[in-house]
């Protein structure tokens, strides 16, 4: 910090966290941008409100992912209005229960030096 002469008003910066209203405004702005970017429309107001709730949850999830995975960038994607369950059901499809057959060919070991 720098010393401030008595005759000069020190610059006061807000150091408290954002209010809930501010966060909601940010989320609404992000959601509007998300809908425009990915061409998302919802049939009813109820559906819209539900998806907005999911979107806000995914913003928090992206923030957690960012903390756990700091070398990548996590944020809004085209899947941001889907719950994790919807995402798994509609966009993943590797059957976990399937196992490799015991008689599957094993690739020969290749040289990797030089």
């Amino acid at each position, binding site marked *: 910090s720098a010393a401030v002469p008595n005759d000069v008003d020190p610059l006061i910066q807000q150091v408290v966290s954002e209010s809930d209203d501010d966060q909601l405004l940010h989320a609404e702005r992000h959601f509007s941008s998300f809908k425009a970017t990915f061409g998302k429309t919802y049939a009813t107001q109820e559906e819209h409100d539900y998806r907005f709730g999911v979107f806000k949850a995914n913003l928090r999830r992206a923030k957690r992912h960012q903390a756990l995975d700091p070398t990548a960038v996590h944020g809004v994607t*085209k899947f941001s209005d889907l719950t994790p369950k919807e995402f798994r059901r509609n*966009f993943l499809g590797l059957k976990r229960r*399937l196992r490799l057959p015991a008689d599957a060919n094993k*690739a020969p070991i290749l040289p*990797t030096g030089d």
Partner: protein
Amino acid sequence: LPADFDWRDKGAVTPVKDQGSCGSCWAFSATGALEGAHYLETGELVSLSEQQLVDCDHECDPEEYGSCDSGCSGGLMNNAFEYALKAGGLEREEDYPYTGTDDTCKFDKSKIVSSVSNFSVISTDEDQIAANLVNHGPLAVGINAVFMQTYVGGVSCPYICGKRIDHGVLLVGYGSSGFAPIRLKEKPYWILKNSWGQSWGEQGYYKICRGYNSCGVDSLVSTVAALHTSNK
């Protein structure tokens, strides 16, 4: 092994595709591997039909009752290779285009353009994975996709990530120097082709750290070899 390698630079990878709302990632992973193998065999890059696999491949794991490839409900790349081996091969994308829904099989054997001659699973050793990638073309791999829903770009090196694989992608290359600022060092990474369109990730691609089976990426890796089949 080269320090950096990318099959996209060598013309062995088709443009990023979009599976839509359909759990057919396994089909895209399998066709991607066969497209690369076909390129190595013939020098020709041909986009192959995922819809043929979605509609016609119901190959089952004989060791587990009820576990069969089932279109948009999921499947496994190795089962798809087994199907392609038995059916004779795959048609071109344009001859059997993708619709993203389960439909009846319309496979026309006379339109086969690429056939499987052999496929193998690769050990979880990362040097072996890299060696097979360089020698045999892009590889079909499974991964835990939990971090992919929110991924925008960069090299993904999650501190914690499940090893339970649930998504099929295509390993097309690797790099040696993705800088990880928070760890203050260069991190090597794999380059994965996804099937969620170009608007996802880095123009449809995902970079994930190499070195510690991150998100199970080394657990299920398969290589396939192609036969050249003339399409008259």
